[in-house]
């Protein structure tokens, strides 16, 4: 079963690996400091090291304010590192890249454009109005179960449908990397599980490299090859766990004893953090 979505062009040949890294995403000694309005400095990220291989699905969990969004914004080229480096295919990220697609926490669709035009936005911005792009947008929408909604406006869609449109938009340029910041955070549990399944299906058929931020530990374990656990003040990676549950996974996976064990392990990490905080 393959995703029959028309590709725009051959994906660009991967850049030759430099200094033996070989990983698609390389984050080294990354630091990010913000100066707040009151003038003091917030250390949002401290000494973050992470390598992500091609086709890997990385989940990121951590308590609120631990710098998850900041990390993702740096990977998206929306924010610059204070020191250290974040690289894609050996190139330091200095601006948004065409081979990276972003799904934000809010669907951020343009309300005055139809669903189809919203999905087409990334290619229209490059001046591409070809019928092939249109075809691809329509097949992406169909793949996400939104075939009949192409001509509708975002306000005529439910929150879950809007978020699916924004996933289609992120996929429009057939990016190698998909960055997702709590994309299902605002949705109810059932819609969320359904979209989890759709995302897994998409990932297994399109083989993207995904960085997926979430508040939900089960969601992180269900989807991820590895789960990056972050902790706050200063935001840092406290642990990276490998999810050794074979694929394909489904909602039934969540009933496996191993699934529960991994979730507990992550929870105990959080617990330790919380415990020290309470003790302080």
């Amino acid at each position, binding site marked *: 079963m393959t995703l029959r979505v028309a590709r725009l062009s051959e994906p660009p040949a991967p850049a030759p690996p430099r200094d033996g890294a070989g990983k698609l995403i390389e984050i080294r000694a990354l630091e990010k400091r913000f100066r707040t309005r009151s003038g003091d400095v917030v250390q949002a990220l401290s000494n973050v090291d992470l390598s992500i291989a091609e086709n890997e699905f990385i989940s990121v969990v951590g308590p609120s304010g631990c710098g998850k969004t900041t990390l993702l914004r740096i990977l*998206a080229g929306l924010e610059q590192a204070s020191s250290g480096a974040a690289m894609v295919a050996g190139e330091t990220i200095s601006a948004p890249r065409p081979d990276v697609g972003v799904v934000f926490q809010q669907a951020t669709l343009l309300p005055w454009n139809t669903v189809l035009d919203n999905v087409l936005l*990334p290619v229209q911005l*490059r001046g591409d109005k070809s019928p092939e792009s249109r075809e691809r947008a329509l097949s992406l929408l169909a793949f996400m179960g939104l075939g009949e909604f192409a001509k509708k406006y975002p306000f005529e869609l439910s929150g879950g449908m809007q978020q699916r449109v924004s996933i289609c938009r992120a996929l429009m340029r057939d990016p190698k990397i998909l960055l997702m910041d709590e994309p299902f955070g605002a949705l109810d549990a059932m819609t969320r599980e359904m979209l989890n399944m759709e995302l897994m299906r998409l990932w297994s058929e399109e083989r993207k490299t995904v960085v997926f931020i979430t508040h939900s530990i089960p969601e992180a374990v269900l989807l991820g090859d590895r789960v990056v656990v972050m902790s706050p003040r200063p935001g840092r990676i406290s642990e990276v766990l490998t999810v050794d549950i074979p694929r394909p996974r489904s909602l039934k996976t969540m009933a496996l004893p191993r699934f529960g064990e991994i979730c507990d392990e992550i929870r105990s990490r959080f617990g330790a953090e919380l415990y020290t905080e309470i003790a302080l």
Partner: protein
Amino acid sequence: MSTSAFISGHRLQSLALIVGVIGTWELSCRFFDIPPLILPAPHAIAARFVTLITSATIWPHLLATLTAVLSGFAAGVAAGLVFGALISLAPAVERLLYPYVVGLQTVPKIAIAPLFIIWFGYGVASKIVITALVCFFPVLVSVMAGFHSTDRDQLDMMKAFGATPWQTLLRLRLPSALVIIFSGLEIAAVMAVIGAIVGEFVGAQQGLGYLITALNFSLDVPGVFAVLIFLSLIGIVLHGLVRACSRRFVFWIRREQNPLVP
């Protein structure tokens, strides 16, 4: 279908209200024997309204005021849009001018109407200029506020998908601004009638404002009320046109219909 029934129900209620108010007014005038010089009865006003039309006295005045309102509105809105856009596009200019725009906004433009009569004469030109001026500021301010109302998440989204500043302007900032710009246009539509009338009060040989002063002078109070009806009609129609355009162009705004207090 139920919505339209609901709305027409509301319309019916509004109609019933105005009929009730006019009925009470009419009855009170008769019952308490209120002199028409103080408050004329609705039937007297209606009769005067009709004679103003049949005797054709109203037309030149209506035409003069309509000319002032429409030309002034068009000129003021056009200038407000152009200057607002130019100022917003040049951040340095915006920082330089913004305090003055806010300062001028608070000057009662009406108070300088007599000067405009001196500069532009007793004819329609001075009324057009006054109207344009009172329309200009709400539009200017709404354009400037509109361009700053863009959602930050959407700006990030445009940036993440590689939009150039111009693309962001045309595909995001401009449509976002339209919502506030249209509310500025609605204010301007109401201000336009006020501007023209004040100009005609201060000095004119024609126009509904001039007619009101003339009728007032000859103690024709029902006549004054009848002219007020014409004035209200101009305001209602112009405002309605702007509202209709706004519904057409910013269709994605779902106006809140629910009451504030349940």
